[in-house]
Structures are given as structure tokens and as C-alpha cells.
């Protein structure tokens, strides 16, 4: 059974801090790893990492994939209150077109 574990489950930081979120996985026939941000509504897509794209960056957010050690990190630098959200990690496998989600990390950024 595919397994995706995110840590920590929650954290509280102050504006300007750097946040590092972890996602480890155990799946058969890995295809890609995706990060989503969820505020008080539906999840929105952030990044997708694959064998051919193991590092992504967009503004203050960046993510890396370590296929050998089976984990990914999402970094948020110079955090703002608008970064407060649940961050979800999901893994897709080659066998099918389903995603397995972790339980999410709740990030709270205080002014």
C-alpha cells in the first residue's frame, strides 16, 4: 500500500521566518510528487517534481525531490501571513492515475 507521510503536522512561525516542510513516501513505481496549498477552500496546485525535474522554485517557494532517499522538501522563505494554509503533498505512480495524499501540514504565520 502506498504511503505518504508529512511532517510536522503543524507549526507556527512569525512573519519573515523560513519554513521547511517534509514529505516522505513509500510507493511502487513512482511517477511524480505534487505539492498543493489549501486555504479556506479547495487545494491549489504549487509544484510537480519528477525524475526529470527534481527542483522547482516560484518566488519565495521552492521544492526539491530526493528520489534516492524518497522524500521532498517544500521551503517558504520570508513568510507572510498569506502563507498561512494547509500544505498537502501527494504522490502519483506509474501504475495508475491516482494520487496518494499525506495528511498535510498546517502552517500558521503570525504578524
Amino acid at each position, binding site marked *: 500500500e502506498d504511503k505518504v507521510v508529512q511532517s510536522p503536522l503543524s507549526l507556527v512561525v512569525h512573519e519573515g521566518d523560513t519554513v521547511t516542510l517534509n514529505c516522505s513516501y513509500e510507493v511502487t513505481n513512482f511517477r511524480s510528487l505534487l505539492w498543493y496549498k489549501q486555504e479556506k*477552500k*479547495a*487545494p*491549489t496546485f504549487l509544484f*510537480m517534481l519528477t525524475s526529470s525535474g527534481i527542483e522547482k522554485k516560484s518566488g519565495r517557494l521552492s521544492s526539491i525531490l530526493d528520489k534516492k532517499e524518497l522524500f521532498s522538501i517544500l521551503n517558504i522563505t520570508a513568510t507572510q501571513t498569506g502563507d498561512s494554509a494547509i500544505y498537502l503533498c501527494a504522490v502519483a505512480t506509474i501504475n495508475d*492515475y*491516482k*494520487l496518494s*495524499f499525506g495528511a498535510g501540514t498546517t502552517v500558521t504565520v503570525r504578524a
Partner: protein
Amino acid sequence: DAGITQSPRHKVTETGTPVTLRCHQTENHRYMYWYRQDPGHGLRLIHYSYGVKDTDKGEVSDGYSVSRSKTEDFLLTLESATSSQTSVYFCAPGTSGGVSYEQYFGPGTRLTVT
């Protein structure tokens, strides 16, 4: 949002009644998924579809059924709603192109079973 709508957006129903949630997409995606989201559980897959009339179960399919008679519509039915099915339900069409695979989520339906 890949042209995704869900209806209704909010519903309160009584235990034992049937409930149908609708997902509509305008981008002609082949794959569509229904998830439920509960605190501490992330998103859990209920059922998914890989084409018209082609569906399969996810990890939490008990008590749910689905139908897909047209590419654009994917229906989720709770045959006899129970309080444990109180949740937020998300629909997500999926895109696939080679190694790329992404899902985009609809706005969600908040269902309360009393």
C-alpha cells in the same frame, strides 16, 4: 480551476436519505476523481473514473457509488447517508501527458448529515 463546478456547494440532510453530488468540468478531461477531506486525514479517494462508464473504487468507497454517463459529469451518490459521511467533498479532474500528471480541484461541497 480548469472549469470545474460542483453542486450543491452546501447541503444538510438527514440520516438515511440518499444524496447525490455533481461535478461538472468543461476541459474534456478523461480522468475524474471524488475525494473527501476530514481533519487529520488529508484527502482520501472515494471513487474515480478513467472514461465514460469506466469507474473504480478508491480507499474509502464503502457507502458511495458513482456514475459517469458523459465526459463532463461525474456524480457521487450516498445511497443512505450516515453521520460518518459528514465531510467536505472535492471533485478533481486529472490531466496526463507522459510523465506529467496533475489534478485540479473543484470548489468543494460541504455535506452535513444530521
